[in-house]
């Protein structure tokens, strides 16, 4: 294994209007290695990949590929230079055979009839070297996801590719298929191909990675060799496989790099009434969750924390009647059997969804029309919508949440992100539910509005509402929540009680799989 640098990143910057997605990043990627890239959502790793593969242009710094300056203007240009991507969403056409998929877009035709393609033999050789169970005439829809990935890899490699970017390739694979993919990755490495591997599953890094780079808030917070992360001085004394303890400790170290120093924001306990249990979830499992057990008391703020993909949002989804589940939910001691959102609302749940644009706001409608949407009764008088009541309601919430808008007639789409979020929260609060779930309540919200939203949440708890907050921001969780449910890989690792000087290291250890 030669150890020269194939990609050299120096002071790389990318600025979008209003956002600095990359703030000067430096690191090297060595030839013929598997280089992992990790970071939470919005940390900058996708931006880096997009610049490398020609989807975005950099706005500062330099990027060298094989020693030459590299600034691809398009994905095709990057591909011709030798950098290909295996996307999370596969581009195979299920109705065609392997052969037809391989030659798709490269067909040679004579008088309109398709001829055999030249590159086919080469691609077939690649496929055989990776997975010899795939035949040319197999329809692609009978292949597994991992086999489809092999076809995509073969297509990528047929254009003399020297760097292959794999974007969360294991996200939709079964355990078995992950093994097969890793075998493929190892074979590609033997053939001298450099692989950039993006994954949210940290433990995978210790199986196939040589190096790992961690992104946080647009910065590179660490580039280390895998043995180094695992606590070995150099590669020589390092075993081929690590034991579980080593991996967990190393994952905790990575999480620390991903999350950074948690600024200690004073936690103020809510006036929870621990004699009144409002919600109890027992042995709930579904396609994404395993054996979820927790309870929620009156006036309590319960936080769910975990890395991306740990299953926070999925907990909200089954509670709100969106996803199916097996197990039991008890509200006020009585077993519930609602099966949809309407049922969940009637049972006393209300939710502020994670993606406000997709699931929260009615953008073309005025603020006034958005707020009563979850409980129209609040603006009806003898069965009809009363403009007077609507205006009053809108004024009340706009004042309470200090929504910055021209007037209550302004279409919500034209508000800033923070104000949109306040409207979505107002809509949910107007429901007057007993159990209020907020999924990423302050994502994409500026600092001032964040503080205001936190105050509102705490105010609700003190009024006796029970709150569940799902957040991927640890400071938000430790600031707000009375108890914290730590999730890892679809399961609850531990439920900890919050206190002024809570052990952050311990939290990081749990969400890393410890």
């Amino acid at each position, binding site marked *: 294994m030669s150890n020269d640098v194939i990609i050299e990143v120096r002071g790389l910057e990318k600025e979008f209007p209003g956002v600095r997605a990359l703030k000067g990043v430096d690191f090297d990627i060595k030839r013929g290695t598997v280089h992992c890239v990790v970071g939470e959502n919005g940390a900058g790793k996708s931006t880096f990949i997009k610049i490398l593969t020609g989807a975005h242009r950099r706005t500062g710094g330099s990027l060298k590929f094989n020693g030459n300056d590299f600034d691809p203007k398009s994905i095709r240009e990057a591909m011709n230079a030798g950098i290909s991507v295996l996307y999370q969403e596969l581009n195979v056409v299920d109705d065609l055979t392997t052969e037809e998929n391989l030659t798709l877009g490269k067909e040679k035709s004579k008088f309109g009839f398709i001829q055999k393609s030249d590159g086919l033999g080469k691609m077939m050789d690649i496929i055989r070297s990776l997975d010899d169970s795939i035949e040319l005439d197999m329809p692609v829809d009978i292949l597994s996801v991992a086999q489809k990935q092999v076809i995509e890899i073969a297509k990528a490699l047929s254009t003399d590719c020297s760097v292959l970017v794999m974007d969360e390739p294991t996200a939709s694979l079964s355990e078995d298929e992950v093994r097969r993919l890793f075998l493929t990755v190892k074979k590609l490495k033997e053939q001298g191909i450099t692989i950039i591997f993006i994954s949210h599953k940290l433990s995978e890094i210790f199986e196939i990675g040589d190096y790992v780079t961690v992104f946080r808030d647009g910065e590179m917070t660490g580039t280390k060799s895998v043995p180094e992360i695992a606590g070995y001085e150099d590669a020589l004394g390092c075993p081929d496989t690590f034991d579980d303890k080593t991996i967990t400790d190393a994952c905790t170290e990575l999480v620390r790099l991903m999350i950074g120093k948690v600024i200690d924001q004073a936690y103020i306990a809510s006036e929870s009434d621990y004699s009144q249990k409002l919600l109890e979830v027992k042995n709930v499992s579904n396609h994404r969750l395993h054996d979820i057990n927790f309870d929620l008391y009156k006036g309590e703020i319960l936080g769910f924390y975990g890395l991306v993909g740990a299953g926070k949002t999925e907990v909200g989804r089954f509670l709100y009647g969106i996803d199916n589940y097996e197990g039991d939910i008890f509200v006020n001691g009585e077993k519930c059997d609602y099966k949809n*959102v309407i049922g969940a609302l009637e049972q006393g749940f209300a939710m502020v*969804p994670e993606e406000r*644009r997709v699931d*929260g706001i*009615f*953008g073309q*409608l005025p603020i006034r029309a958005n707020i009563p949407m979850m409980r129209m009764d609040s603006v009806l008088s003898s069965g009809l*919508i009363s403009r007077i009541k609507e205006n009053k309601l809108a004024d009340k919430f706009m004042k309470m949440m200090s929504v910055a808008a021209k007037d209550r007639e302004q279409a919500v*789409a034209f508000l800033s992100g923070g104000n949109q979020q306040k409207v979505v929260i107002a*809509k949910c609060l107007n429901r007057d539910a007993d159990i209020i779930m907020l999924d990423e309540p302050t994502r994409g919200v500026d600092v001032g509005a964040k503080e205001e939203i936190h105050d509102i949440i705490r105010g609700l708890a003190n009024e006796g509402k029970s709150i569940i907050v799902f957040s991927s921001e640890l400071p938000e969780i430790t600031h707000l929540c009375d108890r914290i449910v730590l999730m890892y890989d679809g399961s609850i690792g531990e439920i900890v009680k919050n206190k002024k000087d809570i052990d952050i290291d311990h939290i990081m250890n749990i969400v890393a799989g410890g």
Partner: protein
Amino acid sequence: MTGKLKLPRFRSQLPILVGIIVFMMIVLTIISPNFLKVQNFSNILLKIGIYILIASAANLIMITGNLDLSVGAVLAFSGILHAYMCKHGVPIPLSILITCIAAMGWGVFNGFIVGKLRIVPVVATLGTMYIAEGFAFLIARWDGGTNIMLGLPGAYTRLGRYMMFGKIPVIIVFVVIVAAIFLFIEKKTKLGRFSYAIGDNRSAAELSGINVTKVIIILYALSALLAGFSGILQSSRVGLAAPNVGRMMETYVLIVCVLGGTKMSGGKGSIIGVLLGAAIIGLLENGLNLLGIDHFYQEVARGLILIIAVLAQKSSGNGRN
């Protein structure tokens, strides 16, 4: 950032529509001496009256981001069914009631496949269109002909030809009533508010606890009811029912709604827009007729207007999504 061509932005496009109507009326007054006559206006109103009756409900469907292409076929089916029953001894008021219920049946069917089974509305209502028209032909066949005219009771045309106060055609009366009802639905009822919400953001509507399927079924039922009632009125006015009278009706209705500012993707539109859109279409057809322009040029003009209306909507850029 949609290029350099930018049209002036209005909060709504209603003032523009009124402007167009005034302009068209001035031009037509100048070029045709027959335009400003009571008889001519009465002709225009009779023609667009049916469009408005149907479009008022179809417009709400479009506001939810869906579409009803079966209105013309349901109109024809209802005319035939009504004529058939009247001819074979069913009392006229009872026949009207049964026909309206049958028409609503098509709407509930549409609403079920679009709202519950989530079939694309264009395909679903196109299917209903063929089925309903097929049944219209079938009923005419039972009667022994291609259309039903001979043997209808004398009172059959009484409703359609009724003049209120001796001079206002009954269809105009119904247009006023229906438009008022839909203005009310839009502004004052949950049904209206939920229609806008669903068209604006269906996912958010579902997560807010709105019963989207129910709203869609009700709207399709209303649309079919009005199409059916229009079929009864029309067949009663002309004193005959034919299974192919509703052809192209769905496109007129579509043009009227789009001209009136209803967004095809949903979330925006109003009954006032429908009235103005219908007026434009009525004036256009009337003007071309008065000028003696061939029928096929009129078709060309209609097609162009539809495309221009959609383009105008696009460049006026309502909302950010």
